[in-house]
């Protein structure tokens, strides 16, 4: 019989597994599992951290309030719209960048660095930079616009152009990651496929649709799934560009949850909103996965 000290120094596979995996699972319990439980629990309480009057069980009242809350539906709509615009947008731009970057350059690093830089840039910084680009008087975009004969515009102060500006910034920021994933996929397509197609007289266009797109599908699916999950959580770029304004025209669900809980300290209702967001992201992710797998099998 080994002493416990010996066992600790030279443990069996199973004991070692438990020892090695426990830090990861302890952290996940503290930061993910317990909070999920607490989230659902909180959503049934009237709970404000500001007043100090404690929390009161109110059943489904928060959920009833949420369904009647116009700001919740506006924020949900904005989030869905941002996802529907920026995910395909980033795919198209990212694919174009990947195709361009895949050409046989003598020096690879300037192109590769140009794809890595937007990826490494904090989202908040990207938002600040694009806010400056869209500045009403001194912004680069406005300058180009005026030079082309347009009237100076308050880009970030009108609902439609502010929304469009945010989508452009998100697409710019996220397309480079997309391009990196797709570029890796492109480089795995065997050259011989294109050579064979060339012999058969296929045009460039045919080669793209018959070889590149189908061979790239696995990478595209991976990139799209991650992009959708992050698009639903959009916070940093609208927060730094417009703070959700004008009015709440560019407020996303994440921003509304943040405002309710961190600024107004209304934890009960904020948790209910977060449950709503949780359900929304589950539905969209599931629908998305089903759609994609159906397309793939078709």
């Amino acid at each position, binding site marked *: 019989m080994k002493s416990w000290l010996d066992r600790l*120094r030279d443990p069996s596979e199973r004991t070692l597994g438990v020892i090695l995996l426990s830090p990861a699972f302890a952290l996940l319990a503290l930061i993910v599992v317990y909070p999920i439980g*607490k989230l659902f629990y*909180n959503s049934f309480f009237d709970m404000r951290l500001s007043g100090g009057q404690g929390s009161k069980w109110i059943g489904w009242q928060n959920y009833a309030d949420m369904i009647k809350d116009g700001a919740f539906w506006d924020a949900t709509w904005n989030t869905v719209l941002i996802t529907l615009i920026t995910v395909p947008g980033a795919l198209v731009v990212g694919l174009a960048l990947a195709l361009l970057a895949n050409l046989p350059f003598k020096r690879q690093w300037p192109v590769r660095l*140009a794809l890595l830089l937007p990826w490494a840039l904090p989202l908040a*910084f990207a938002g600040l930079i694009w806010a400056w680009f869209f500045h009403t008087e001194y912004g680069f975009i406005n300058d180009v616009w005026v030079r082309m004969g347009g009237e100076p515009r308050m880009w970030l102060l009108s609902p439609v152009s502010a929304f469009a500006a945010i989508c452009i910034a998100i697409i710019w920021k996220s397309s480079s990651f997309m391009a990196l994933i797709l570029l*890796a996929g492109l480089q795995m397509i065997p050259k011989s496929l294109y050579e064979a197609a060339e012999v058969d007289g296929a045009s460039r266009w045919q080669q793209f649709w018959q070889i590149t797109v189908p061979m790239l599908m696995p990478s595209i699916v991976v990139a799209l799934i991650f992009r959708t999950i992050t698009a639903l959580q959009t916070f940093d770029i609208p927060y730094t560009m417009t703070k959700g304004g004008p009015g709440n025209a560019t407020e996303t669900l994440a921003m509304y949850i943040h405002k309710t*809980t961190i600024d107004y300290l209304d934890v009960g209702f904020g948790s209910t909103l977060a449950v709503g967001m949780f359900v929304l992201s589950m539905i969209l992710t599931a629908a998305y996965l089903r759609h994609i797998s159906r397309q793939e099998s078709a």
Partner: protein
Amino acid sequence: MNDRGGLLSGVRLRFIAATIVVLNGFFPAVWILFTSLKSEAELFRKPITYFPHEPTLRNYIAAAVDQPLFQVFMKNSVVVALLATVVSLLVAAFAAYAIARLNLKRRQLILTAIIASSMFPLITLLVPIFETMRALGWLNSYLALVFPYVVLNLPVCTLVLVSFFQSIPRDLENAAMIDGCTRFETLWRVVLPLSAPGVFTAGILAFVNAWDEFLLALSLNSNAAMRTLPVGITLYQGEFTFPWPIISAALIVAIVPVAIVIAIFQERVVGGLTAGGLKG
């Protein structure tokens, strides 16, 4: 053969392609650099200038010296990102080794559980994490950010490290154990040195993730002295009326260190991203 002559022939096509990609990636940063070098008088002249006509470093001095908190933000960002990186690597390396090497039942399930749960939308957990940190008394401290960032990093680091551990020949480990090394000695003397490149790659990705994070840093550390760079610079706006030249200088100072690291280790970063890439 297709007609590939004319305007879009080889060299010229490649040059145009490279220019588009490079402009797309660099232009915003270059524009901010130009802005940061302009004097206030030049910046607010119309029509706007593109290149700075009388370059000045005054904005950098203003950002670093007149804003004493800028140095504090920088320190906070460095400390939080480094701590998060070290802890992420330790936790992920332990888990990845167990998944890659040990004879465990349901290894795939364990890996999926780790990845799926750490990819849970952070914003939905913001409130309970806020409450937990408040209960622990960790709000406005480095700890409040380090632990959630480790969770954020767990999927990428675990995936990168699992694939690295799997590439180390098992015979090397067996030989070390036959020579009388204990399991931990084998880990420390054989596995760790061999997986150094993987650890390094995972480390860069973890550092960038932590350096970039905004929502939690904004929500959990509201005290100005505990803000990280992204939050600190964003909130400059509230304290003054949009000091764009100073913000630009601050952005450049905050971007350059990470950009240099990325430039030096770009091949590794790309490899790591595509092996276990998960960031948006």
